[in-house]
């Protein structure tokens, strides 16, 4: 005896298919809303900023007068910041991830660290600014220099890099580790020769995405004292500096309305540099994945 009534099945058929179509439309609209706002943003910034964007803007310092203001100090300052943040966070972050994933015994202690890492990754950036101000500027009396700013940004992205590196180390198949241990390899040999080469595309992708977050951060740098108007370039990590987002922020607060256009031009430069960074990330990932 049939338990399924064929009539019910065919009656329900058109309803099920209709629901599927409705679902598709809803998801499409959701996507379009996001795209519309992105498009509006891009349109506004491009129309306002392209006029001010020229060689003088890229090679000049900021100025009292909107038509002479440039973003050079911001770009160079941001690059200096990254020269501190990138090596420090990548080295400490990957080392931490290796310890947690490969060496540490699973237990209450590692679980505690794990939960805190994930929470830290969600802490607002201004809190890290306060931390940097207290530790670097006040306790170590570094003053308002590139090193203090770079390390503060480093604190901010470190948890993100650790978590990304952990994920990518965890995704290396266990059979490969077993094969290596099975030949008498030590843990370090296995990590260096098998696990890291397989995990590096993921680590770099996560790392560069985290760094592009750092390069756009304003709040923590305001706290650790990035300058808003500066007319010399830092020549090392112990010099005062400014950064692209700081420069943009100070222009938006300037009294003359024309500075709005300068700020838009600055945003274009910042976005272009971000896109460049992201494409480097994709490039590196593809290059490394091909070798596997």
């Amino acid at each position, binding site marked *: 005896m049939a338990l399924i009534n064929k009539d019910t099945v065919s009656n329900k058929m058109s309803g099920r298919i209709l629901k599927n179509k409705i679902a598709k439309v809803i998801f499409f609209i959701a996507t379009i809303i996001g795209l519309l706002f992105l498009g509006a943003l891009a349109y506004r910034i491009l129309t306002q900023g392209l006029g001010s964007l020229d060689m003088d803007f890229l090679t000049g310092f900021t100025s009292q007068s909107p038509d002479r203001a440039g973003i050079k100090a911001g770009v160079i300052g941001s690059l200096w910041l990254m020269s501190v943040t990138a090596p420090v966070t990548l080295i400490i972050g990957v080392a931490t991830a290796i310890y947690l994933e490969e060496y540490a015994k699973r237990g209450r202690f590692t679980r505690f660290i794990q939960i805190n890492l994930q929470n830290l990754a969600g802490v607002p950036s201004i809190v890290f600014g306060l931390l940097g101000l207290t530790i670097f500027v006040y306790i170590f009396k570094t003053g308002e220099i590139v090193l203090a700013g770079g390390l503060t940004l480093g604190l901010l992205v470190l948890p993100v890099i650790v978590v990304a590196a952990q994920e990518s180390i965890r995704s290396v198949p266990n059979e*490969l580790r077993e094969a290596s241990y099975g030949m008498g390899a030590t843990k370090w040999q296995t990590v260096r020769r098998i696990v890291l080469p397989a995990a590096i595309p993921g680590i770099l992708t996560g790392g560069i995405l985290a760094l592009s977050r750092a390069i756009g951060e304003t709040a923590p740098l305001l706290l650790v004292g990035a300058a808003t108007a500066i007319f010399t370039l830092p020549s090392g990590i112990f010099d005062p500096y400014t950064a692209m987002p700081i420069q943009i922020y100070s222009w938006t607060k300037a009294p003359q309305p024309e500075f709005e256009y300068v700020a838009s031009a600055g945003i274009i430069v910042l976005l272009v540099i971000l896109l460049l960074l992201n494409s480097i990330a994709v490039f590196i990932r593809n290059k490394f994945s091909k070798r596997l």
Partner: protein
Amino acid sequence: MADTKSSVFNVKDLNLWYGDNQALYDINMDIKENDVTAIIGPSGCGKSTYVKTLNRMVETVPVVKTSGEIEYRGKNIFDKNYLVEDLRTKVGMVFQKPNPFPKSIYENIVYGPKIHGIKDKKTLDQIVEKSLKGAALWDEVKDRLHENAYGLSGGQQQRVCIARCLAIEPDVILMDEPTSALDPISTLKVEELIQELKKDYSIVIVTHNMQQAARISDKTAFFLSGELVEYTDTNTLFSTPSDKRTEDYITGRFG
């Protein structure tokens, strides 16, 4: 006859737990030099766990506890001072699923020698040729040693893994169902290979396949629910098993 051979492993009262679940009960077993020792039994009987205990690979599972002793060439491998890296250098392993590294065939073979500090290019080249010949793979791959091992067939990949194991010139080779992921022709090749290898190595092989155990092994151990039920010459075990449970299993009445 077999008793005149010296022992490679001497297992005494071995018990093993995964957390609270006991997986092995009071195993006593003497594994002889240059024998092929087959471990048979139904799924979940502990045969894989057992063979992975012989090179302490089982310890990669964090909750494992053991009691008893395993003497390898007269020394207890559970001794605090026993270096697990040293044990695994002498007791090589071939896994159930072929697990070559995502590197070239050449790099796969020289991995072991390299981690043990052999750097001389000529020596490494010789090791590669000798190991691949030992694994009956040389003629098939000699012209593409620098191609990725992932491009090989499953059977060839498994023989790369065997060659990789031979490259560190171990004393014992543990094989955990090495042919379960292979087609019949590749299986036959690996079985022939095992016959060749037993001249130079002692082999412990876990197998699901009773015909395979009967074909290739000198001694067979039958495991059931974590216990060693019977361990004797392969011919004796398959013709006149002394335990009723062994008889039921090999005649296909269960498992």
